[in-house]
């Protein structure tokens, strides 16, 4: 479904991604783990067209997308929940969700999706008229994921959804990620520093170190890999 081939991305003269190759199959949960500054967010931004790769290609469902602007890429069915959630602070919860439907015209389904979300996160329903900026971190993460669901993505990119959240909320959010993967057949590309949790729910995983992919295997195998254990699982 998604292919990255020999991707090299730079910030000025600093190379953030070196010869990245990745494959994501339809219906999978894959995870990209790595230390802070490894280049995980840059990988997602390169896929979405926010940061342009200097070399290499990105293909989505057989179509080259590396030359496209972000809005065109979103229209193909790729959506990202970026690191830091990026809730519109002065829009209400409802308006934030509504922004997720910017490219959609199927009013009936939008209504259903909204009900689905309020069912998933009753907290958001309670706060629907509150400004996004006034929500707690956990609620903002729920809203960010919900807003992404409202776009009906084929491929959902999640950048560190567990960052800064209490364990109980993290668990809830990971359950929902599994659920939307199963129920809606949404393909998930999960970036995490919390490698333990991510590898447990992922079918496959990639390990990134200073801009390069150093390992890729099934989630299970990576969880039991000695190097991974030492470097990322703190065992």
């Amino acid at each position: 479904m998604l292919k990255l081939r020999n991707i090299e991305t730079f910030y000025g003269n600093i190379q953030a991604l070196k010869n990245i190759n990745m494959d994501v199959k339809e219906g999978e949960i894959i995870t990209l783990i790595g230390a802070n500054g490894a280049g995980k967010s840059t990988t997602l931004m390169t896929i979405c067209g926010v940061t342009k790769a200097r070399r290499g290609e990105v293909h989505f469902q057989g179509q080259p997308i590396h030359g496209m602007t972000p809005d065109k890429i979103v229209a193909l069915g790729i959506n990202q929940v970026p690191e830091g959630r990026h809730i519109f602070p002065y829009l209400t919860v409802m308006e934030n969700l509504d922004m997720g439907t910017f490219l959609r015209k199927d009013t009936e389904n939008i209504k259903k999706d909204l009900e689905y979300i309020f069912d998933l996160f009753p907290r958001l329903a309670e706060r629907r008229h509150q400004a996004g900026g006034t929500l707690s971190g956990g609620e903002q993460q729920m809203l960010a994921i919900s807003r992404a669901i409202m776009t009906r993505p084929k491929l959902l990119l999640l950048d560190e959804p567990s960052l800064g959240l209490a364990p109980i909320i993290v668990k809830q959010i990971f359950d929902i990620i599994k659920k939307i993967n199963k129920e809606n057949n949404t393909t998930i590309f999960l970036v995490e520093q919390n490698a333990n949790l991510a590898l447990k729910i992922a079918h496959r995983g990639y390990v990134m170190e200073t801009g390069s992919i150093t390992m890729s295997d099934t989630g299970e195998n990576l969880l039991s890999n000695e190097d991974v254990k030492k470097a990322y699982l703190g065992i």
Partner: protein
Amino acid sequence: MDFEYFAQLFLGGLTRGSIYALIALGYTMVYGIIELINFAHGEIYMIGAFTGLIIASVFTMLGFPTLAVVVLAGMAAIVYSCAYGFTMEKIAYKPLRNAPRLSALISAIGMSLFLQNYVLLAQTSDFLPFPSLIPDFEFWEPYAHILTSPELVIIITTVVVMILLTFLIKFTQIGKAMRATSQDKMMAALLGINVDRVISVTFIVGSATAAIGGILIASHIGQINFYMGFIAGIKAFVAAVLGGIGSIPGAVLGALVLGWTESFFTGYISSDYEDVFAFLFLVVILIFRPSGILGRAETKKV
């Protein structure tokens, strides 16, 4: 206290404030989206007035009725100003979008000087008489001594523009996109919003309201020159800052406050210090409310 005099000053201030508001909207909308003080915005207003004058003269000469002349001149001014605003963004600001903010500001000042001199050379440095496009309405005769017909038209037009703009921003797709883009450009793009287009539309809408302001004031004052955009632009900019730059209701409120301040100070104290009062007031307000009357606290942008 003489009530009639007070009413005159109040309505005079409202008229001035309306004009400032029409121009201030452009400043505040552009700032809200790309955090740029578009110093060349006053020139868009000036170009609107010049276009209006040329078109109005031609069609008056051809013997068109007044109403047709007003509509044609107004439309031409809007279209022309919008074209300038759109082009200005593409050539002077878009290439600098990721450059340090000072570069874009200098580009804006350059654009302002360029347009002034361009009109100076292409037209003239003299004041040109501008026809009074708005007739004195008979039905308004009894009140004309407090508020003239042209002033009435200015106020009504401004109110209509404000209502349309509010509708645009609150209820249309492009309005939603504008609000999202002004709060978080990257996230807007990640939700499928074409940010470049939103920025272009913002310049176009701001230019249209400035052109309307330009025509109205030119017809009211009766003369224009290439420099008119500078002074009006500065005043409107003050209004936008006063209200809280980036905030649309703020720009309108700031413009009205400025209009009334000027009107009352000149009416009751002295007309020699009109601009001094305006700026004094700006300084005082900004001391107590640094982000303007309706401005958001400094954490506005992420």
